[in-house]
């Protein structure tokens, strides 16, 4: 344990001693924090800690967008937190396009890691081309109870 932690321990001990004998508990200082898991301090200071961190902007979030153009080909719809159809069969070389119709964002993430979409907001789309035959199971990485399969034939 680095020596820099000793000071914090002493303060902590003092707080505990105060807790044991003080008759006016409302006036106690806030307890100090001792970190054991990293070289620097996790978390961020609140307003009564240190001055606010510079560099963070308050700009409004950008609306979520998927791939702009749906490529002609086979389609999977995402409705009510389910992939429809649950199993899609296409020929090798086909491009499959997913369209999210839920307010909740979804992704398409292959179990074998061969494809992974960004988050798709409402009406967001994602396309992936399957060059070779095989059975590709995938999930939504945000809601992994959503799962489906693309079967690619020669």
């Amino acid at each position, binding site marked *: 344990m680095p020596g820099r932690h000793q000071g914090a321990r002493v303060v*902590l001990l003092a*707080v*505990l001693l105060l*807790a044991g004998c003080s008759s006016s*508990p*409302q006036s*106690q200082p*806030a*307890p*100090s*924090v*001792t*970190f*054991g*898991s*990293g*070289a*620097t*301090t*996790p*978390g*961020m*200071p*609140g*307003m*009564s*800690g240190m001055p*606010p*961190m510079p560099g*963070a*902007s*308050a*700009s*409004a*979030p*950008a*609306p*979520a967008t998927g791939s702009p153009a749906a490529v002609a080909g086979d389609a999977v719809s995402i409705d*009510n*937190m*389910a992939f429809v159809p649950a199993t899609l069969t296409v020929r090798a070389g086909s491009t499959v396009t997913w369209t999210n119709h*839920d*307010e*909740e*964002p979804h*992704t398409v993430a292959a179990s074998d890691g061969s494809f*992974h*979409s*960004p*988050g798709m*907001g*409402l009406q967001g789309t994602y396309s992936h081309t399957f060059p070779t035959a095989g059975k590709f199971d995938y*999930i939504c*990485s*945000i*809601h*992994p*109870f959503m*799962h489906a399969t693309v079967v690619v034939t020669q």
Partner: protein
Amino acid sequence: MTDAAHTMSRRQLIRHSAWFGAAVGLAVVGGEVISHIAGTADAARVQGRPTLRFAQVSDSHIGFTGKANSNVASSFSQAIDRINDLGYPPDFVIHTGDLTHLATPDQFDQVKQMMTGLRTPHVFTVPGEHDSVDDAGQKYRSAFGAGTRGDGWYSFDIAGVHVIALVNTLNLKKLGHLGADQLDFIAKDVAALSSDTPVIVFSHIPLFAMYPDWGWGTDDAAQALSNLRRFSSVTCLNGHVHQVFSKTEGNVTFYSGTTTAYPLPHPGDGPAPKPVTLPAGKLHDALGIREVSYTKGQNALALKERTLQ
């Protein structure tokens, strides 16, 4: 009430007509909901400053746009005001994940900037799956990962209490997942602690099987909790499910917290955990923050659920 929860299986619990109230005592006192497990009601009435007091906020989903909440930034801002108006500065504030809705840099910037308005010495976070949509949490760790270990986990000691913050939203198959590296961290992290050290664990996804069909559980939580069996007081606080719930298993009590963004259905109510749009004027009753306090000598923490209304 707690004993009833012990002896019911999950299916029985779900069938129970008063499911939502089965495992947690809920008392509405002056507009605030106070939850407690059997035998701990006195903890909330102890006079003076507790040994430790902190606030939990969760599931702000900054960037969400939908009819379930037309302005999640406004409701998160109200949650921050609610914490700042508690009448004392909490020793720290924990955000238990889904800070953002789609893990974009702008959304991380916005939520981080908003949280600098919390009047507390420390703000801690754990990531939700919405904070790690497509990059295994890299953008989350850029914004909030300083000083953490592994994929963003860490621990600290405050006022004699050991606090562990876990990441169970990466490498999801169906349920939450901690992984071998993090399980190893937990084992080593608590090894030197005496068994009477109170332990508090934060995670986004529940560490208990709240409703596995919707992913509301963690597949390797039992291994993590096996390291905590010897401790007399273990409290696990999570978000993810957007509703207050509590369950006790042996020496461990689990508390799911509500959201500042939009409600989700109760477990099994409907086909999927889609955002619920409430009638006009009802939303803020479903949103809230949680006060938690620990008083030395008490095994159980005292919790107060406060709505934004």
